[in-house]
């Protein structure tokens, strides 16, 4: 039982950041119909940016976090303007190939710049964990969960309570009609990609210090994010939030009770199972594409 409670605690911490990853991708995939292979690289970028700011500029982790999120926002906007805007009328397979090209470039640039050795980041939190009965959680990881939840709530407010969010939802429902109603669809696309990317960078900036930072950490983060999106249903932010926690739970229990080697296989098995049983996702609202 104690072991199980510890798994649940780990699930919550992992799930919060997975939810951030999934929400970012579901916005991009849902609104722009772009299969964003660079999502995992933005996750890696966020983690390295925190490392850069802390170790080179000597700033505090708490300050580095917002800097990394803003950097992710800017990098996302740049990718959208350079690669996706000229490709807006191309079919989904073509943009997918462009994004794979971008992923390869980003991944290897990271490896070239930072080398293959994993980095760790020092944080202002105490080393000794917070012990609650049978469960022990480090202060850093508790902070990670708290920040992830805050960012999830902020995204909800952005999408449901602001004018930008309303325009994003309108574009998701019907691009052409939204455009006729005066929504600047091009700007919405850039904003969507930038926001989605900043959420991925935030996830990396939060999880990176909690584990280690390596150039390959993003390799399967994109695919995990896809698992979450598929689980939650396309463009469904609530679904992605729940999906993030479900994936984290599946990974934790799989690693704990089956075999730690197959931790990463859980996401893929979920993808295959969901698409074969209920291809619209567990919390489906929208029509599926393709």
């Amino acid at each position: 039982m104690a072991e199980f409670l510890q798994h649940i605690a780990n699930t919550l911490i992992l799930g919060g950041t997975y939810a951030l990853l999934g929400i970012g991708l579901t916005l991009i995939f849902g609104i722009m119909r772009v299969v964003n292979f660079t999502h995992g690289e933005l996750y890696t970028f966020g983690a390295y940016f925190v490392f850069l700011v802390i170790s080179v500029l000597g700033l505090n982790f708490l300050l580095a976090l917002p800097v990394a999120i803003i950097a992710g926002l800017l990098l996302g906007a740049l990718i959208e303007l350079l690669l996706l805007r000229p490709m807006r009328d191309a079919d989904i397979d073509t943009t997918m190939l462009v994004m794979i090209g971008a992923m390869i470039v980003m991944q290897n640039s990271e490896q070239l710049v930072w080398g293959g050795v994993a980095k760790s980041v020092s944080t202002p939190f105490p080393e000794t964990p917070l012990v609650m009965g049978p469960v022990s959680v480090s202060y850093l990881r508790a902070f990670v969960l708290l920040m992830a939840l805050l960012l999830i709530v902020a995204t909800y407010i952005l999408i449901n309570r602001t004018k930008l969010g309303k325009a994003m939802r309108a574009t998701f429902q019907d691009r052409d009609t939204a455009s006729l109603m005066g929504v600047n669809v091009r700007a919405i696309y850039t904003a969507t990609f930038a926001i989605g990317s900043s959420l991925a960078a935030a996830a990396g900036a939060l999880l990176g210090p909690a584990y280690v930072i390596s150039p390959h950490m993003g390799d399967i983060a994109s695919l995990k994010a896809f698992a979450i999106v598929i689980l939650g249903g396309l463009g469904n932010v609530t679904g992605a939030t729940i999906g993030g926690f479900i994936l984290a739970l599946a990974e934790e229990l799989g690693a704990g009770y089956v075999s730690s080697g197959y931790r990463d296989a859980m996401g893929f098995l979920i993808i295959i199972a969901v698409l074969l049983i209920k291809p619209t996702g567990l919390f489906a609202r929208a029509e599926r594409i393709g």
Partner: protein
Amino acid sequence: MRRLFSYVIVALLASVPLWLGDPYILNAFITTGIFTIAAMSLNLLLGYTGQLSLGHVAFFGIGAYVSALTSLGFDVELFEGFHVVHEPWPVVYGFLLAIVFAGLCGYLVGKLSFRVRGAYFVIVTISFAEVVRLVALNWVELTQGPLALTSIPPFTLGLPGLGYVNLYGKAGNYYLVLGVGLVAYIVIKHLVQSRIGRAMIALKENESLAVSIGINVTAYLMLAAVVSAAIAGAAGSIYAHYLRIIDPDIFLFLYTVTMVIMVITGGKGTLAGPVVGGAIFGAIPVIVRSFAAPEVQWILYGAFMIAIIFVLPQGIVPAIERWFPRGPIKQPRVASQSAASVE
């Protein structure tokens, strides 16, 4: 004219080991050849049926592992006290089993993944490859996991009058790759220029329309998936017996990307496309290696892929064909000019 041109190309390729002294360059020729065969098989799915399968490396890797394990033998305990023991077999059987096994996996994956289309199809195929990679990494008893399968025997050919010949050397492997490549090319050529190929192109251009005129879409997709996976398995088998060591990294997504880049750059849905693309991306590492880190090679691959899609979305071969139109048209031309740019 075109036929003569093909003969000249084959003769030139066949003469390479005779005048090429540098073993490193010959090695590059062999590995490029192997990946070109894999790219040709991917082209059957990607170029002719229009399904972007990004798990193709799984069939390549499965072929490599099946062939290596057949020729090495193994002893695996499936349940308590239930052992599956396999004595080493000659490599040729491994090669044939690799083709059969990869084809079978192609059938199963096709059966599962053709239920969805577009982005979802892509994600299912990638997921399959990743699951296979994790199995290869974790089923240590069978695959040695990250320690890799080593001392894989080289290819052995039973030649009439010569007895058995071991292909230890690079030249022997080169001719093996060339021979298998030619066979694969001819198989794919006959397939796509037949009624079957026209049906595949029809369903790529407009699936609903193809269904409405009575084309059995699923059957043709499955056929393409099986043939494509089987050829990739053959390429994987040659790769395993040439390198004589394989590890789970053979399943890395980067290798699928390599195949995709070759197909896209050369021209998807053309027979010569993967060969041209293979030649270009086989040459890049050789050139880049002299002055830069391996990462630079990959950065160039990625940048090249983006540039090709922006500048020549149909690839190099269709662009050249537009400059040099062929004479009287024998087969109906593949009308794919509009596929990527409009839609």
